[in-house]
């Protein structure tokens, strides 16, 4: 248990939280509700996975929410004139393209990633709003698309399956491919990576492209759920939730440190809290406050030895009282 907590603290936190919510709300641990949580958390989960790649490579991507929005209006809008599968491909390619643009400006001109992606965040949102005329688009979406949300395979909702599949592919990529390893190297020490012959620009652009792709994919899932695309409110603030999910899962914003498992758990923790607070009828304001507190505690305990010792002392004093 102690070892598990040391290597995967977020897994322990996730399970503990689920148990506590289960005690507080009788319906929380119902299979139906759990699968609901997975469904909801998977959307943010895709974006958080992409964010994880960018953070590991030493960057940050604020444009993800806007890419979700653009993807959703493209898929819905293009379905009126093109076969839906073509529209979906165009939307996913658009996401990858925006990622490449982000990566290009970050690497070719050494601009700060936060500024580059802040710009694309605004530009892409603007394009999505112009394309949709700021109105929801319903298009002519095929019924099969909605299976992406409502389908159930082996008792698991399809979005959850896709979410875990994306996680598994990401884990494999980071662990078993040269490019995956190079992401850690570039994020951990860019100069050392360059001197070891690694093409730093290629690696960085790749991380932004992955982030763009996964954000566009989240847009597809959103269309499947909402049965429409919308550009004004879709994905607002997701970049911050995605960063929060990764940070809760132990991904360092300095680059080079973090895991996919952590990010997945971070996304689930955030999704679970939202769901539980709804069930318990807690004011939504409190949700934001608690997410903020969880983030602060998580990051403090990853990065500060003093803070970890403080928690240790607190926990041991509690057990003594009991």
């Amino acid at each position, binding site marked *: 248990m102690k070892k598990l907590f040391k290597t995967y603290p977020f897994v322990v936190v996730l399970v503990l939280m689920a148990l506590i919510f289960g005690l507080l709300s009788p319906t929380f641990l119902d299979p139906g509700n759990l699968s609901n949580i997975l469904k909801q958390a998977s959307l943010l989960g895709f974006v958080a996975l992409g964010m994880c790649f960018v953070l590991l490579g030493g960057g940050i991507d604020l444009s993800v929410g806007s890419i979700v929005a653009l993807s959703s209006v493209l898929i819905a809008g293009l379905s009126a004139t093109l076969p839906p599968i073509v529209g979906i491909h165009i939307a996913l390619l658009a996401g990858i393209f925006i990622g490449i643009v982000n990566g290009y400006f970050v690497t070719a001109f050494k601009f700060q990633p936060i500024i580059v992606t802040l710009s694309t965040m605004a530009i892409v949102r603007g394009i999505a709003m112009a394309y949709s005329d700021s109105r929801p688009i319903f298009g002519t979406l095929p019924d099969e698309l909605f299976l992406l949300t409502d389908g159930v395979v082996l008792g698991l909702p399809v979005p959850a399956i896709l979410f875990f599949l994306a996680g598994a592919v990401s884990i*494999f990529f980071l*662990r*078993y*491919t*040269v490019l995956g*390893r*190079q992401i*850690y*190297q570039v994020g*951990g*020490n860019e*100069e*050392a*990576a*360059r*001197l*070891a*012959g*690694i*093409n730093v620009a290629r690696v960085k652009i790749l991380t932004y492209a992955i982030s763009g792709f996964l954000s566009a994919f989240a847009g597809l899932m959103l269309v499947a759920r909402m049965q429409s695309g919308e550009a004004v409110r879709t994905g607002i603030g997701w970049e911050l939730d995605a960063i929060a999910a990764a940070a809760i899962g132990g991904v*360092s914003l300095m680059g*080079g*440190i973090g895991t996919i498992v952590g990010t997945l758990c971070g996304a689930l923790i955030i999704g679970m809290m939202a769901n539980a607070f709804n069930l318990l009828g807690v004011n939504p304001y409190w949700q934001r406050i608690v997410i903020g507190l969880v983030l602060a505690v998580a990051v403090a305990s990853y990065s500060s030895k003093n803070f970890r010792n403080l928690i240790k002392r607190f926990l041991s004093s509690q057990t003594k009282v009991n």
Partner: protein
Amino acid sequence: MLLEARHVSKFYPGVKALTSVDFSIDAGEVVAVVGENGAGKSTLMKILAGAIEPNEGELYLDGNSVEFDGPLDAQRRGICTIYQELMIVPELSVVENVFLGHLKKKGIFLDWNAMRKEAKGILSRLGSAPSLDAKAGELSVAEQQLIEIAKSMSRKSRLLIMDEPTASLSKDEVANLFDLVRSLKAEGIAVILITHHLHEIFEICDRLVVLRDGNYVGASDIKQIDEAGLVEMMLGRTVDNYVDSRRHMVKSDELVLKARGLTRAPYINNVDLTLHRGEVLGIAGLMGSGRTELMRAIYGADKLDRGSIEINGSAAYLSSPRKALDQGLGLAPEDRKTQGLVLSMPIAHNATMPSLLEYVGPFGLNLGKETAAAKDLCEKLYVKYASLSQPAGNLSGGNQQKVVLAKLLGAGTDIYLLDEPTRGIDIGAKEAIFDLIWDLTAKGNSVIIISSVIEELIRVCDRIVCLHLGRVTNTYERGNYDLNRIMLNAMGKSEAGAIQ
């Protein structure tokens, strides 16, 4: 005496940085503090500037015993230090920088008029007038240095400590700085110069103080000492030009590397270099000699202004480290922490960094094969570790250096560029590295090695090239080594005997 230190010592856990050193300087005097790297120059300067407290010994200011309560206290008493890394705030204007930390106030408001007037006065006294409103970051290094001096003047300094002030200045700028030092001297301000350039010592200093291994060696009036005497004081040993008997010459006539006219302003200037198969070539240069820049330029890490490189007889365009690696060049960078390793990553992943492609199987990376290879590399170099999966940052300096070299070995290159591979590591690790170098050259590889410790070069190299301010000052073949002469060349004496 303006400032005097008597028997000051400074100990760190396990290290004696300074042992019972005496030092004194009078008003209007210019004193050079000379010594090899690690001689204790910086420690002594920090004690004089109040930045660190000595464990033993006393300081006397104007004849009265004094204990500085931090560097600010020393500044208030008239002792200012200008470090190599200038303490300029690039976004602030010249005036703001001059009065940084002691802005003049009138009531609760800043008194800009008074500050501008005084800054103008000081700057014109120093013989230069950059616009008061220019951003400091947009000025040249020499002008920034001037602002630092003006800053200390505005604090009514009586003693100025300058740590290698000419490191990044052009020839004309150095001449201007010397003029400035002379006029400060005429005003009765004392100057301490930390330097290892002969021309500075003999041109503007009145006296020199020599340190070696943290000990006080002696002081001398400049007029009573010559270059040979100075180097003898610095090195302090009658040299037997010790050459390791285990070393067999395996150098062949075949050229593996031929560089012509390498230039990267202002660091390296028209450097020619050749390297034979099986040869160990040493670069004897002190800090700021351009030695690191030379290695990096050959490796393609920095862009050259001019020059050509031939590898194995054909022209090579090394525009990136990747291309250099592909041509068989490997670099062990000077600073292992910031350039050599990814400290957050496991030892194994660091060791296989440039050679990762070799462990790709049909199903992605073969982690078993990779770990085995990393283990093999680390064992070859006797890296001491608890587990290959522990972060490289947890290793000691010597072991980190060995991982950097393991990385190179794994890359399978045949020309090794080693930039200060023995700095800050223990004797055992040093021996392991020398053994490795001999082993490599016996197998037909070639090595270029940089070291500040010339004895090390004499021991392992077949040929030694002396570098000073980006120029080659002399070359020695094995058999003609002379430690004192090599040191003089590294300090700026050219082959013909003139001081650069």
